[in-house]
C-alpha cells in the first residue's frame, strides 16, 4: 500500500530525511519511534503534502501512484489521513460544518454524491458517541478552546468518519493523560481492519502498550536504523535512543 524508497527530504537548506525506506501492507500497523529531531514529524508532513518539505531524492508510492505529485486534498480523497500532533484551531467554522465540508469534498473528488446535512449529522453522532465527543463540542468552532485530549479525540473521530486506507498518527499520545490515552487508543484499535494500514509515530513506548504494532522502525538522524517486532519498543524503553544516536567512535 505504501512504498517509501530512499526518501530524502529538505526543509529550506536543511536535510532532514536522508534515505528513508519503508513498506507497509494493508492490514498492518507499523510504528515509527525516534528521538526529538529524528525526522518523525517531517515524515508525517511529507506524506500529507504540507508545503515547504522538498523531496530531493527517492520516491513515495501509494497504491502504486506517486503520492508526492498529488495535492493534499487529493491525497485525502484517495484515503490518506494524518492525525496531527498539533491540530489547528479555526475560529468561525463550527466542527460540524467542517466535518460535513471535508467529508463531501472527499466524496466529490471520488465522483460520489454528497451526503445531506441530516445524513452527516447521523453519521457523526454515531461515531462521536464511542469517542466521547459531545454534541456541544461539535457545535463549537473547530478546535477552539478544546483541551489537548479533546483535540486528539476529534482527530480520531475524523479518522472514523473519513475511513482512510492509510492513517498516519503523529504523536497522538502527546499531551494526553492515561485515561485520555486509553480512550484514543481504543478508538484507533476499533479502526484496525484488513484493508487499512496505519503508521503510528511516537517518541514513547507508552502508546504502543495500547496500540500494538506489527512492526517497529527506529528513526534516527533521518534514516531507519533498526527494525523489529513489538518487543523492540520495550528494549528502547529500557536502553533509550542513545545507542542509535551516538556517532560511531
Amino acid at each position: 500500500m505504501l512504498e517509501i524508497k530512499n526518501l530524502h527530504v529538505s526543509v529550506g537548506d536543511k536535510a532532514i530525511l536522508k534515505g528513508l525506506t519503508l513498506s507497509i501492507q494493508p492490514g498492518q500497523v507499523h510504528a515509527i519511534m525516534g528521538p526529538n529531531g529524528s525526522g518523525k514529524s517531517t515524515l508525517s508532513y511529507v506524506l500529507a503534502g504540507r508545503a515547504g518539505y522538498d523531496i530531493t531524492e527517492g520516491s513515495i508510492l501509494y497504491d502504486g501512484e506517486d503520492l508526492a505529485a498529488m495535492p493534499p486534498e487529493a491525497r485525502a480523497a484517495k484515503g490518506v489521513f494524518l492525525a496531527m500532533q498539533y491540530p489547528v484551531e479555526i475560529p468561525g467554522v463550527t466542527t460540524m460544518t467542517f466535518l460535513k465540508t471535508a467529508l463531501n469534498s472527499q466524496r466529490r473528488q471520488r465522483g460520489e454524491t454528497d451526503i445531506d446535512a441530516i445524513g452527516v449529522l447521523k453519521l457523526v453522532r454515531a461515531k462521536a458517541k464511542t469517542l466521547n465527543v459531545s454534541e456541544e463540542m461539535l457545535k463549537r468552532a473547530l478546535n477552539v478552546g478544546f483541551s489537548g485530549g479533546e483535540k486528539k479525540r476529534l482527530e480520531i473521530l475524523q479518522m472514523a468518519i473519513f475511513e482512510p486506507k492509510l492513517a498516519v498518527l503523529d504523536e497522538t499520545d502527546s499531551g494526553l493523560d492515561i485515561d485520555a490515552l486509553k480512550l484514543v487508543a481504543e478508538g484507533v484499535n476499533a479502526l484496525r481492519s484488513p484493508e487499512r494500514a496505519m503508521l503510528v509515530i511516537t517518541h514513547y513506548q507508552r502508546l504502543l502498550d495500547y496500540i500494538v504494532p506489527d512492526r517497529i522502525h527506529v528513526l534516527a538522524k533521518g534514516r531507519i536504523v533498526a527494525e523489529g517486532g513489538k518487543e523492540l519498543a520495550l528494549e528502547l524503553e529500557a536502553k533509550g535512543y542513545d545507542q542509535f544516536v551516538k556517532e560511531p567512535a
Partner: protein
Amino acid sequence: MTAIAERRAEARTIFEGHGLPTRRVEEWKYSDLKSALGEAGLGEATAYARLLGRLPEGVDYCDLANPKPWAAAHFGALQFGGGARNAVSEASLAFAEGGLALRVPAGLAITEPLMLETGGAGHLRLLLVVEAGAALTLYESTDTAGPRNAGFEIVLGEGAHLAHVRLARPVETVQVEEIAISLAARARYDGHFASFGGKLARAELAIALEGEGAQAHLSGVSVLGESAHADVTTHVIHRKGNTQSTQLFKHVAGGKARAVYQGKVTVAKGADGADSRQTAKALLLSETAEADLKPELEIFAEDVKCAHGAAIGDLDAEQIFYLRSRGIPEDHARALLLYAFLEEALNPIANEDLCAAVRAGVQTALRGLL
C-alpha cells in the same frame, strides 16, 4: 422664509465656502472624493429613496419638501461628523429637493423590517424619528447608480431601539452616505454595515450618545476586489454617564482594493462610567491591496473603560493546510477561512432574514475574489 429654507440656504453657503473635501482634510485622507468625482463634482440633482415592499403599519411619513411638524422639528438639526459643519452633508441638505421622513410613534414596537432602497444620481436626504419606547428594524440597500450623496438623520427617543442593516451593493461609481444619530437616555442603536465597494464608497457615522445609559453597537464587513474602495468612518461621542459603544469591523481586500476604517471615540467631560470597545481587522489577499485602519480615542471623563485595536494580516497557511489535508480543495478552504474571518462581524445581525441576505451578498463577493 421658513426655518428650514433658512437652514438650507445656510448649508449652501457653507458648502460653497468649503467646496468638496480634498485629501488634505484629515477625515478624507484615505478617500479622495474630489478626484473620484472629477470635473463634474456632485452636481445639484436630487436622488431618491424608495420603499421595498410595504410600509409597516403604524409608521408615519412625509416628504421633507412639505414636512409635518415632527419632521420640521428635527430636519437639518443634527451634527454630522468632521468638525464645525460637514461640507458633504451640508451639500445634501442644500441641494436635495425634498426627501423621505419616517416616524415610529412613541411606544410602538414594530417587528416587520422597514425596507428602503436609495437610488439615482445626486443628493438625497432621509430623516427617521423613533420616538420614546418605540422599536424598529430598518434595512437599507443601495442601487448601483451614482454619483450619490445621501444625508441621513436618525433621532432615537428615550428607550427607543433601532436595528439598522445597511447593505451597499458593489458599484462602479461614487456613493457617500453621511449618517448622524442622536440617542436619548437608554436608547439603543445596533448598526450593521456590509460594503462591496465602489470607485469610492463611504458610510460615515456620527453617533451622539446624548442620554444616560444610551448604547450604540456597530459591526460591519467589507469584501473588496479589483480596484474597489470602501470606507467606514465613525465618530461616537459619549456625552453622558454609563453610555456604551462597541465597534467591530472586518475587511477582506484583494486585487488593488482599498479598505478604510477610521473610528474615533470621544468620551466627553462628565460621561463617567462610559464603556467603549473598538476593533478593526483586515485580511489582504494580494500585495497590491491596502487597508488603512485608524482607531482613535479622546477621553475627558473619569472612570471610563475604553479599548481599541487594529490588525492587518493574511490567511493562515497552517489553517489552509489543515483543511486541505482533510480533503477540502484549496480555493474552497480559502473561501471557508475568509467567511470564518468575517463571521464574527455578521453574527450580531439579529433579524434572521436580513442576516441571511447579508451573508448571501458576502458569499457572492467572496467567490468573486477567489
